[in-house]
């Protein structure tokens, strides 16, 4: 298992999204988040984006006011995780259109759905943006769902309506 948890934290250190791939109690989570956030937010731009904390390696990246922190095992490829964070942000960007902190706050469940498509049980599953966002479109009703699981593509949907 590579990824242990994914956190999104704003500049003030408030958690905006948390997804763990191993079971921790609420208290453990709070403590862990506090420690990590304090450690990462104190670092400046010039320093590298990897921090070792307890038995995790934290790979973090900052986008405007939001920090994306990914806790991984020690033998994980840090550069790949860095790239993954970027992919996550790009995906959210595509969905929300210039994603910001508020988008994630008010559409927490959507952010979770996307994350869920991309990572499962700590492993990266899907890296194609289109594939990640398809279920989301289903949810939003862009794609009509029928009871016998016949699903139409957006193109067909357009054809139908026209």
């Amino acid at each position, binding site marked *: *298992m590579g990824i242990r948890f994914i956190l999104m934290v704003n500049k003030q250190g408030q*958690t*905006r*999204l*948390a*997804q763990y*791939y191993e*079971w921790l109690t*609420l208290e453990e*989570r*709070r403590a862990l*988040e506090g420690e990590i956030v304090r450690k990462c937010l104190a670092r400046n731009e*010039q*320093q*590298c*984006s*990897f*921090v070792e904390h307890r038995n995790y390696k934290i790979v973090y990246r900052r986008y405007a006011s939001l920090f994306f922190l990914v806790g991984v095992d020690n033998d994980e*490829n*840090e*550069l*790949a995780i*860095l*790239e*993954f964070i*970027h*992919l996550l942000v790009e995906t959210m960007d595509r969905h929300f259109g210039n994603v910001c902190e508020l988008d994630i*706050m*008010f559409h*927490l*469940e959507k952010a*979770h*759905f996307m994350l*869920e*498509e991309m990572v*499962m*049980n700590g*492993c*990266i*599953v*899907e*890296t*194609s*943006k*289109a*594939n990640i966002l*398809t*279920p989301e479109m*289903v*949810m939003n009703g862009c794609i009509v*769902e029928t009871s*016998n*699981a016949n*699903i139409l*593509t957006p193109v067909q949907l357009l054809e139908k309506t026209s």
Partner: protein
Amino acid sequence: MIRAIRACKTAAEERAVVRKECAAIRASINEDDQDYRHRNLAKLMFIQMLGYPTHFGQMECLKLIASAGFPEKRIGYLGLMLLLDERQEVLIDLNHSNQYIVGLALCALGNICSAEMARDLAPVVERLLQFRDPNIRKKKNLQHTIIQGKNAKAALCSIRIIKKVPDLAENFINCAASLLKEKHHGVLITGVQLCADLCKVSSEALECFRKKCTEGLVRTLRDIVNSPYSPEYDISGITDPYLHIRLLKLLRILGQGDADASDRMTDILAQVATKTESNKNAGNAILYECVETIMSIEDDGGLRVLAINILGKFLSNRDNNIRYVALNMLMRATTLDAQAVQRHRATILDCVKDSDASIRKRALELLYLLVNENNVKPLIKELIEYLEVSDQEFKGDLTAKICSLVEKFSSEKIWYIDQMLKVLSEAGNFVKDEVWHALIVVISNASDLHGYTVRALYRAFLTSTEQETLVRVAVWCIGEYGDMLVNNVGMLDIEDPITVTECHAVDAVEVAIKRHTSDLTTKAMALIALLKISSRFPSYSERIKGIIVQNKGNLVLELQQRSIEFNRILQKHQNIRSALVERMPVLDEATFSGRMAGSFPTAISTSSGAPSNLPNGIAKPATAPIPDLLDLSSDDVPAPSSSGGDFLQDLLGVDLSPTPAPSGADKPPKASTDVLLDLLSIGTSLPVQTGSSASDILSSSQDDKAPFANFNGLASLSSLSANATSPANAAPMMDLLDGHGPGPQKPEENGQAYPSLVAYESSSLRVMFNFSKQPGSPQTTLIQATFTNLSSNVYNDFLFQAAVPKFLQLHLDPATSNTLPASGDGSITQNLKVTNSQHGKKSLVMRVRIAYKTNNKDVLEERQINNFPQNL
């Protein structure tokens, strides 16, 4: 709600809002409101993320899952994953006709399933893994990808299952292998991951994949590397770097420890290593993974050179992240191929000077591994130069590493001393105690360099007085070798001549003692140095006395006491002074290093100056219940000068034999304990009360001697030598002083709160008990029994037995020997531990039996001991 929470300024406000919301959600749950259910759950998720308990929402999740609509199910599952945990049993519908829903269920299962669930659901997952409905596939491309997405999820789900229940692994081997032939990236990546995990849990799977799949994997990797642009998976010009990395990882697992498999993958690895673009992060990630794979597989070395060159390129990259991983990787590579890494030494050295703390730390660690006999000198030179300009936080690390390197490769003493002096004068405040202790040991051993060292130290001291440890070492050396400083003894060719008068030397020490920033240890060392140079330079005796007297009123008990003692020595005991302050005997390197290795932490805690700095002649304590004290004393007993040996023995005898006891014995000896503890605690803070009571005794015995005559007995017992000045005691005091080598005498009876007891005495045998308590356990008394043979025959098969009543618990350690030499020519000691469950109510009582053989005759002596001191 989120807006409300965001508006909260304080944590208390936030808590209030959350509480209100929770109440509202609970009410809504109770009303069983269909419409708001998923809204509630979304709120709950947010609340949980903020770190508040949300147990009451768990049932809601299940209700949502059970409902029909896709959005409801979806949020239900999400809630399920976030709010629930492994401990709860959940029912999931994996057999639903809608592929999306199956995907959801699998995802949830993959994230939270427990061992029991894994066992139950494994067959279903396995079926789903193979499931591929041809009709659906034909129908629509989109749906196809969804099914494959589901396959991928099933694969990950199986990963979880095999992790939880490793014995199910074999069921999955075949389908995993077939997944590797898949075209779809999502399926492939998870398939690869599944294989990797299978390999980890079962060696059988590893073998199987090695045989069957290595070729296939290599082919897949080649396809991806050469694949044309595909927009879906493209990341900065490289097709799906994640898949690259996963594939390389699996290859690593397969290649590790298997030359054949490694051989088959060398080509593709070389191809990846050379073809991948390194100007983008994604490309670098792949290169990094590739290097790691090359490092771990069995290879002849050609590829390894390539790999290390890639790392070298990484090192010179401007991106910190890349340099960081390169350093990390090189660290691992040093064990494999130190020579190749050596070539990048210069670059690594540059990284030590980087502005990023993490990089510096890594680089320093790596450099530390790279240093060997050949390159140590230039490297240390570089590092010390850098030490001058590095920032404060980094100095600590850097000095520690330099010191340990210098120590490790100290082929020549003069080089060692030189380097250490440089470090001390640059960053003395960061040098650890044990390092400068070691330095002093080395200095004292290098007899031909004494003069050189003390002059160099003096020079360094003049320029940088702010470095605590430098001051300490300098003061110690001036104290010991002050005469060499002045007379330019042992001048080396490389040295600049320097004229130091006696006055200068005294000045230097005076500066040290008067500095505000000097801590207790430094001041104490300076005091001792003063005492020492007072005898080296008799003409400055009066001035030194003046300096010492200034400290008589020092608030720190230790300094006060010492200055009073030294003052006495200067005033009253001129005749013994020179013997007293003789040069320290050469410190034993072997003992020192042995102790460094062995009881390192205790040594530090014992006393700040333990190994060498404070020349207390610490006599071997008769009872040493606390191991570190034992350690301290055994190391620090200075080889006593000429006549000292016997007296040391005598002192021991004093502790053991009954003679000196009377005055001490019938006093409740609390005060003396305190004084003793004081002696022990050099530089450690004392409880206020203890300190004051002890100093009372000190000052009173100093000022008015008569009324405290009864204390003199005590004082003599505990050998507060210089203070006890009553005429009656003058003679034995002198003896004590004479008896010892350098330094003021402090025979320490560690923590011995109770007078010794002659437990048994007959015409042929004497048994002495010494008592001590361990701090913190008043019920337990440690007794050291000492047996002395008073007859003229040797006792063989000596056996001591003891019995106690029920309220006591007795533990006997083995005796030191079972042969007791004749006529008091030696003794046996044996430790006893007694725990008194009625502590404070009943005192100790013990029946002893002693059996031994003398002249081939068995002798048995028995006696009950009732005269233990009270309150043991």
